[in-house]
């Protein structure tokens, strides 16, 4: 049976077992999510699993982890056939997973979270023994964490490291990671991945790495399996496959490299010219449209989240704000969108004082594309047409006698926009919550970009979207800029910012800490500032100066 982790973990012995998924299939209703897919993870190797959203990567690993029961196929671990019934069961077999979302409990300490994850916890937890055991465990680990820190106080990168530590603490021999670097800075990502790579080299673990970043595959993986629409479309050693070959497999051979979104490119500097179009024409950029001066706000727990943000956005430019999740960028967008009150500071738009009220936003042509639009900018149970009318339904052109809504005109506009933006919806009367993420994003973008746009605030506009949708939404944002809009783009994806932004600002701990030069912005330098290592100022000194 499984090795029960004792408080003092003995050193691992032997190489991790071979994990083999043999011809797995899984059907949801009429949808074949996984079609006869096999995966072979050799002991001590890093195996990358590549594919677009919806390609079946998650379904495959969910079958391996026991979340789903495959309709057909077998899973073998070492020389035994296994059928994990639950994630807990898979864990007891030595297969562990690091999820894209965190499974740590925010209101508990790192120590409590780690101990909690152990199977067969004693009834009364002897914290003195556990502390000693954890300390000796950490001493063997490549990075250190503060065991007594509450998880909610940690950055995303630190949480990700603890998720990985947790798998090692549980002595998982096969570790599956679902896009582990999406919340990390480039430097953190390299650090974490090279650590996993080394542990695999040392024969301690095998790694399955789900990703869509070719750079991570070529740099850290040994083998790669490519999925597309539920089928396995490619497999091979990383040395044998070029990024463009992998991209062709993922996209079904229909792709040209220029249509790939930035995140799929193997290197920033190989990007084609049209992808690097940042609108730096001297003539195109106009006067300062948005002035944010010393803006302060608090987060939900009353902790200062914005500590004096000052920036300007001129018309005809895209200002990209790069930040790791939890450094105030969400709060910045919420303050501008009217979802959060500022505690101090001013925002000026087109020379007038701006407050995120309906009338003012309308008068100043300020539009918002918040992140997770289904949650932040839509009423999921209302129809596509109604959602597209949310911003304008009370304008005279949609009303009779000043108060009676004209459903006909609302439907007309919706039909036009659905056609124009290629929104795939069964009908404009379908509840918007039933649309796919990309189509919700398109619908909200259509609503927000209708008419004259002076200011567009966009937050993570492409989160969770597939290649085609990403390319299209980027094109729409560029088009808005070309029509003279001042665009403030907040994104956790540095590649996206590098591709779109005219100017790049880095936000850390609630402040703008760095402005990258117009030309030759260095991802490594930006990443350093994102991680808060750019400014050589001690945290308490920063407090004093605020």
């Amino acid at each position, binding site marked *: 049976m499984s090795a029960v982790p004792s408080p003092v973990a003995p050193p691992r012995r032997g190489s991790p077992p071979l994990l083999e998924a043999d011809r797995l299939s899984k059907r949801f209703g009429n949808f074949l999510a996984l079609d006869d897919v096999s995966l072979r993870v050799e002991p001590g190797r890093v195996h990358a699993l590549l594919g677009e959203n919806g390609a079946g990567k998650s379904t495959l690993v969910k079958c391996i982890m026991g979340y789903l029961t495959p309709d057909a196929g077998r899973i073998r671990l070492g020389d035994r056939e296994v059928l994990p019934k*639950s994630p807990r069961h898979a864990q007891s077999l030595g297969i562990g997973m690091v999820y894209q979302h965190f499974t740590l409990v925010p209101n508990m300490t790192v120590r409590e979270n780690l101990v909690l994850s152990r199977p067969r916890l004693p009834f009364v937890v002897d914290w003195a023994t556990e502390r000693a055991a954890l300390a000796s465990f950490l001493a063997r680990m490549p990075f250190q964490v503060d065991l007594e820190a509450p998880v909610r106080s940690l950055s995303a990168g630190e949480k990700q490291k603890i998720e990985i530590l947790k798998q090692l603490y549980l002595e998982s021999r096969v570790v599956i990671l679902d896009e582990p670097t999406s919340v990390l800075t480039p430097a953190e990502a390299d650090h974490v991945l090279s650590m996993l790579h080394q542990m695999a080299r040392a024969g301690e673990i095998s790694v399955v790495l789900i990703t869509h970043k070719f750079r991570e595959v070529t740099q850290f993986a040994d083998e790669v399996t490519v999925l597309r629409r539920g089928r396995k479309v490619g497999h091979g050693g990383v040395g044998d496959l070029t990024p463009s070959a992998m991209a062709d497999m993922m996209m079904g051979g229909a792709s040209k490299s220029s249509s790939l979104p930035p995140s799929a490119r193997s290197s920033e500097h190989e990007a084609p010219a049209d992808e690097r179009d940042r609108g730096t024409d001297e003539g195109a950029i106009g006067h300062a449209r948005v002035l944010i001066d010393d803006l302060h706000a608090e987060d939900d727990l009353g902790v200062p989240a914005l500590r004096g943000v000052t920036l300007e956005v001129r018309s005809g430019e895209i200002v990209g704000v790069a930040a790791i999740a939890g450094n105030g960028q969400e709060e910045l967008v919420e303050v501008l969108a009217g979802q959060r*009150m500022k505690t101090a500071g001013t925002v000026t738009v087109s020379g007038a004082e701006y407050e995120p009220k309906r009338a003012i936003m309308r008068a100043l042509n300020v539009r918002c594309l918040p992140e997770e639009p289904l949650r932040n900018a839509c009423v999921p149970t209302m129809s596509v047409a109604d959602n597209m009318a949310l911003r304008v339904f009370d304008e005279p052109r949609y009303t009779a006698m000043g108060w009676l809504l004209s459903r006909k005109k609302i439907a007309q506009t919706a039909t036009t926009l659905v056609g124009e933006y290629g929104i795939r919806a069964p009908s404009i009367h379908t509840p918007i919550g039933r649309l796919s993420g990309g189509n919700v994003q398109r619908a909200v973008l259509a609503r927000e970009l209708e008419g004259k746009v002076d200011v567009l605030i966009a937050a993570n506009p492409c989160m969770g979207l597939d290649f085609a949708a990403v390319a299209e939404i980027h094109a729409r944002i560029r088009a808005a800029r070309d029509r003279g809009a001042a665009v403030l783009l907040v994104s956790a994806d540095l590649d996206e910012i590098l591709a779109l932004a005219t100017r790049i600002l880095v936000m850390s701990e609630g402040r703008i800490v760095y402005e990258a030069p117009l030309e030759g912005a260095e991802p490594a330098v930006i990443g350093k500032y994102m991680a808060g290592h750019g400014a050589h100022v001690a945290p308490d000194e920063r407090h004093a100066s605020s």
Partner: protein
Amino acid sequence: MLEGRMSDTAAGLGIWALPLALIGGALRVSGPYLFVSLGECLTEKSGRINLGQEGTLILGAMTAYGVSYLSGSPWLGVLAAGCAGLVLGALHAWLCSLPRVNDVAVGIALMLFGVGIAFFLGKPLIQPPAPRLSPIELGAWSSIAPVRAALEIHGLLLLGVVAAFVMRFVFRRTRWGLVLRVAGEDADAARALGYDVDRVRLVATAIGGFFAGVGGSFLSLVYPGSWSEGLSSGQGLMAVALVIFARWDPVKCLWTSLLFGGAGALGPALQSIGILGGYNLYATAPYVLTFVIMIATSSARRTFADQPAELTVAR
């Protein structure tokens, strides 16, 4: 009656009469608050709010009084009250585990149910006297009556005090407590760890109901020590505010209960030193305190860091 006895000698104690009467009153009045808030704290830690505690409290009071009357043993009454609460708590948890059932709505329904069934079954119990729990006379050394009265401690209250510390120990140091907190903080994480969140909440809500039921027995068997339909004055509901004020910490629930008890004892205490005017005004002190606490601790902009993240009101 007790207060009347005190007022005879109150004049002799001068300035000490009021605090003594307040302490004595607080120790008696805080009992129901303590038990209900401990029960509610346990329930909320698991990620559910049970607003039915007021109904559980009254049903517990009636059950305790009835069982004590019929069996002659008040402690058996306390146990029966706890069991009645256990059943109501389990019912709440079961209803909430059904799809798309809101715990707040279920709680209100069960509050009305508990009160209604207690009044219905308790009709014959209004007249007959039942054996009550007898106090431990900690003030026997003193010859001053108000001192003796103030230091009359009930074993049941001491059990509550012990329970508060045990509960804190359980939350912090036991597997059971950790699992309970995970269920209350992040149901998905709890499921990922292989725990059945509904079952954890069932156990927590049922035991929480047990506590509230015992709190009811305090009303009918200790103070005021009889059964009538006007027995509770909303302690079961105020306990919800109390738990928020105590930041979901059982030991803080103890101190807060004493504070609420003191506020509840303000009217009788003032009466005992001869201030008779405005009795009804002073009787509102616990409610005013509830308002003040709710206003002072709430904010439109932030949520409590200690609040179990799974609570419906937190989402």
